């Protein structure tokens, strides 16, 4: 909602309030000011000029040489406008003047002729879009006068971001009423007395067939109308609030709509078949309708139409029809001022995709009792500015007439809800200040009559808000609630997510957050099978782009996009993780299943951003991501339901986007908790990533269900441990991990630690063999183990390894 301060001051004094103060007061009343704009800034130096003579430019066909009078001076100006002529009063920008678009006027030679300034068009001065020629001002004006004075251009525009409840302030008078509240004045509306049309004296009829959709319809007839441009003051106010002047009749209906908040429509009376207005829905054969923007609109049976005796002539409250539009030839008008059902108007405007200033107001609700005032105002202006005569009488159908709403307001309730300590008199005083009638019924109960223009006030609590607003939110006390103390239960999933995040940041990963919607072709890019359940996604009906068309069923694609983006910006060493929801389609009309998953990716150097002085520039590999996964599971202390979580190399059972030979399934018995792998070359190519990518996908919610390893104290060892190493030569196809598993499987009580510390193949090792070096630590809780005992254990292990996997060994002793 836009208005100018000059317009506002027609109804109320705004003296003593500068534009910024006005904006601040309105904002604090709930009319949030979005912009305060000084209008026509930078035109101070523009003055009127009179063209004395016009000659052809000797060196250019389209230019003229003019003698221009500016006050006492006469100066030569080269002009290219088609409408320049002797006697014309226009505007000149003299050398040194800067135009609103930044263009600076200089004394110039144009094709050899001196020009001492520029004659300006409306557009060049930023006043309107008119650029057909230079400005043509009132021929009685003298030259040399400041243009801002002549055209009354000193003004400020204020734009309010109007909340949907305050339809009463979609009008300058409504804003004035609010200003009256805080400046303690009363407004002077332009119309104070309105004749009540009773249907007599007119030669047309109005029938409302849909009273639910049209609670009130009033119409009057005007004759002898002369269509012409509006006077400057009217054009100026419309342009200042962003409306284009059309002609006097259209401009007046727009002006009164902005003034009163009541949309009006003028029909060409001679085009009304049967001299009748029928408010109804389309009939079966009325399927399309041409609106005044010359577009065919498809009608649906529940749209409300304004019709004559034969056919629709307007979409009620939304847009008029082309055929009944006011044209230059129009001499007789039917002026409509009506009230329509907000929901119906909103639906229609939506379906036709025709939001308009009129529908904006109707769908928020107009004051049904304000209809006649607005019509009378328009009639008076038409008589004044379009030479019209009004036909005495008119029609006013008001099937939806209701008594004004009366509400009881409990003052105690006001104070309870606001935390204030107001008296009945204070509360009544605030309400009366904004034209609300209040009767004190005693016992702290006020009877409030809600004025018809405040359609948003329906309940006691709405009045409480009015009081709060008028007291001022910042004047209401600030207290803290007294509520029973409690330390609520904490969501274990949220704690798990936080813990996981802190572990992975400690491991050198940055957290990513991606959009929940992705491109559907990600599934193809990852080569998912046609029957892969992850293709069962939730699709958006109205996505912004194809890239964001479906809800994600996995996190990896988003992270691959992140890798590509980072590489494009020279960030090639990447460790990212994301914890986020994925969405699985369940059935039409049913909410999808939402589940938290975890995904981490690694690519580039093993130690990103680490100092090469100390760290190798080795590339990251599958052991890094496996290690990260192990660290996570260890820190979380999760234990498989089966007793142990295993990392299973299973080339037979892999994801289509993971290299089989690099795939590790993280298993709890038969249940897969997650997967580690290297992205296939093909998938990497699809995501335009040229370097190796390792990833970890984990079902985070599955981890939540797993038993935890209790934190339980064990006494510190009292006896020393003994370490033995084994270097074993085994066939190359034996997984080194299997040797380790074998040691653990022995469950020799005194083995407290075992690990692999070297794997080597190549010379001097025989071909087909590799050396695996293991270390085993023995300790007893009862005594110091002697060499003989340890040797016993150790030999047992070594023999088991040899017989189980074959090969030679040598033993090292520390």
């Amino acid at each position, binding site marked *: 909602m836009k208005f100018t301060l000059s317009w506002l001051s027609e109804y109320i004094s705004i003296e003593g309030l500068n534009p910024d103060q006005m904006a601040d007061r309105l904002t*604090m009343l*709930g009319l*949030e000011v*979005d912009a305060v704009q000084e209008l026509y800034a930078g035109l101070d130096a523009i003055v009127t000029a009179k063209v004395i003579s016009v000659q052809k430019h000797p060196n250019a066909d389209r230019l003229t040489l003019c003698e221009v009078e500016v006050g006492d001076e006469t100066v030569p100006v080269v002009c290219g406008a088609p409408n320049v002529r002797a006697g014309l009063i226009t505007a000149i920008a003299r050398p040194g003047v800067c135009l609103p678009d930044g263009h600076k006027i200089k004394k110039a030679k144009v094709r050899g002729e001196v020009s001492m300034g520029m004659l300006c068009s409306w557009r060049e001065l930023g006043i309107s879009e008119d650029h057909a020629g230079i400005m043509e001002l009132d021929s009685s004006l003298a030259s040399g006068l400041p243009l801002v004075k002549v055209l009354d251009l000193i003004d400020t525009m204020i734009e309010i971001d109007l*909340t*949907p409840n305050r339809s009463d302030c979609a009008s300058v008078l409504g804003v004035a009423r609010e200003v009256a509240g805080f400046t303690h004045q009363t407004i002077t509306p332009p119309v104070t007395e309105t004749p009540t049309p009773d249907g007599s004296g007119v030669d047309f009829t109005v029938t409302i067939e849909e009273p639910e959709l049209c609670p009130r319809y009033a119409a009057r007839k005007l004759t002898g109308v002369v269509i012409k441009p509006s006077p400057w003051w009217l054009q100026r106010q419309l342009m200042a609030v962003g409306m284009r002047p059309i002609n006097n009749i259209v401009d007046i209906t727009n002006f009164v709509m902005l003034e009163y908040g009541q949309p009006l429509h003028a029909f060409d009376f001679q085009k009304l078949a049967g001299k009748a207005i029928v408010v109804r829905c389309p009939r079966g054969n009325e399927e399309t309708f041409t609106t005044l923007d010359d577009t065919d609109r498809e009608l649906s049976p529940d749209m409300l139409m304004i019709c004559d005796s034969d056919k629709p002539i307007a979409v009620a409250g939304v847009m008029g029809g082309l055929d009944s539009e006011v044209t230059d030839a129009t001499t007789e008008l039917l002026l409509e001022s009506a009230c329509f059902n907000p929901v119906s108007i*909103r639906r229609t405007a939506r379906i036709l995709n025709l939001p308009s200033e009129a529908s904006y107001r109707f769908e928020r609700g107009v004051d049904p009792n304000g209809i006649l005032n607005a019509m009378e105002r328009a009639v008076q202006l038409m008589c004044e500015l379009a030479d019209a005569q009004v036909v005495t009488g008119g029609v006013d159908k008001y099937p939806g007439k209701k008594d004004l709403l009366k509400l009881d307001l409990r003052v105690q309730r006001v104070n*309870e*809800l*606001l*935390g204030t300590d107001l008296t009945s008199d204070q509360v009544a005083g605030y309400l009366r200040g904004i034209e609300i009638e209040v009767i004190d019924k005693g016992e702290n109960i006020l009877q409030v009559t809600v004025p018809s223009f405040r359609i948003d006030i329906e309940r006691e*609590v*709405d009045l409480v*808000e009015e009081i*709060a*607003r008028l007291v001022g*939110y*910042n004047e*209401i006390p*600030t*207290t*803290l*609630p007294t*509520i029973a*103390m409690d330390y*609520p*239960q904490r969501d274990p999933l949220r704690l798990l997510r936080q813990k996981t995040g*802190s572990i992975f*940041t400690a491991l*050198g990963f*940055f*957290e*990513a*957050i*991606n*959009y*929940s*919607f992705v491109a559907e072709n990600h599934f193809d890019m990852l080569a998912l099978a046609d029957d892969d359940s992850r293709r069962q996604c939730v*699709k*958006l*009906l*109205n*996505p*912004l782009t194809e890239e964001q068309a479906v*809800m994600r069923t996995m996190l990896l694609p988003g992270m691959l996009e*992140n890798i590509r*983006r*980072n590489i494009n*910006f020279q960030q090639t060493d990447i*460790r990212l993780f994301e914890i986020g*929801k994925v*969405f699985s389609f369940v059935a*039409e*009309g049913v*909410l999808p299943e*939402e589940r938290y998953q975890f995904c981490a990716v690694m690519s580039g150097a093993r130690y990103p*951003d*680490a*100092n090469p*002085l100390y760290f190798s520039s080795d590339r990251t590999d599958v052991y890094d991501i496996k290690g990260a996964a192990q660290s996570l599971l260890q820190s979380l202390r999760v234990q498989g339901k089966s007793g142990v979580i295993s990392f299973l190399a299973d080339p037979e059972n892999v994801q289509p986007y993971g290299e089989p030979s690099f795939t590790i399934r993280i298993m709890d018995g038969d249940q897969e908790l997650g997967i580690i792998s290297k992205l296939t070359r093909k998938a990497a190519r699809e995501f335009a990533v040229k370097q190796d990518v390792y990833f970890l996908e984990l079902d985070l919610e599955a981890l939540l269900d797993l038993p935890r390893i209790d934190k339980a104290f064990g006494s510190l060892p009292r006896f020393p441990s003994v370490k033995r190493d084994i270097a074993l030569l085994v066939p190359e196809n034996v997984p080194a991990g299997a040797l380790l598993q074998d040691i653990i499987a022995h469950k020799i009580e005194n083995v407290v630690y075992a690990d692999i510390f070297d794997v080597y193949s190549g010379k001097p090792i025989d071909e087909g063999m590799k050396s695996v070096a293991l270390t085993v630590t023995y300790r007893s809780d009862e005594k110091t183990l002697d060499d003989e005992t340890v040797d016993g254990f150790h030999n047992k292990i070594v023999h088991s390894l040899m017989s189980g996997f074959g090969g030679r060994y040598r033993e090292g002793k520390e």
Partner: protein
Amino acid sequence: MENELQRLKAEAEEALHAIGDKAALEEFRVKFLGRKGLLSSTMKQLGKVSKEDRPRLGKLANTIKKGVEELFQDKKEVLESSGGGIVEDVDLSLPGRSLPFGKLHPVTQVMDEICAVFEGMGFAVAEGPDVETDHYNFEALNIPKHHPARDMHDTFYVSDSILLRTHTSPMQARIMENQEPPLRYIAPGKVYRCDSDITHTPMFVQVEGFLVDRKVSFADLKGVLSSFIHRMFRDDLPLRFRPSFFPFTEPSAEVDIACVFCGGSGCRICKRTGWIEILGAGLIDPEVMKMVGYDPDEFSGFAFGLGVERIAMLKYGIDDIRLYYENDLRFLSQF
């Protein structure tokens, strides 16, 4: 013998004091403390003294030797630590050896901070579905179909009745439906609106909060939100409450803080007003209460919602909201 020992001690102390470099120190060590040094040779003489004197003199000799050794060590350390930090092959001006570490996303960091403030005030944290029904997202919040307030929500639809939640407010209805007051909850989560430009991303993160009990007032709302903002930013940050409109609160408020960029004097970011909007709030509308079966005359409460990206933007000075979800390491590593 005793004199000899005392003389050696004095001589050694004097010599040590005069030493200024490592070579001289080594000479000293050989001369006094070496296996064939003066102290050792003197101590070998102990066998020749009388039996009665031997324990006393032996003890003395040991004490002296130990004392000289200590002085020698001290001198050695002094010499090694001087010389501008360059001693042997340690160059302490080199950078420390630190393993790379990552960071949480700035939105997560700010979210955790927000939750911590409210959890400190006893609020519980709850989360709801991102894909929501029209009922919870709109109807239960007093936003019927064809209400102009739906214009404030550019909604992504999955079907007629299912959509991506446009705010975290549905959690108000979901929780109140199943529990009795007193209630104190915050509900963080992702929300979606079909709008994308320099100030809007189609997905963003909100935190909804509400408190319901007997006799909860607008003054209480002001108190809790003022505490929150002061803990989140700084205690003397000016803030103001002003009227606004949300269909599910009445009265409704928006809260502004003094512009953190210009300090309130007016700049481009605060549109010259000196204030920046930070959250929306209000007393829970009686209609919302009735729909979940509460008696609005018995219970009252307040609700609020805030955008996490916006708070991160204000705290860290991020000027382009789209950066949040590109996951550029140059961005993520800054926070």
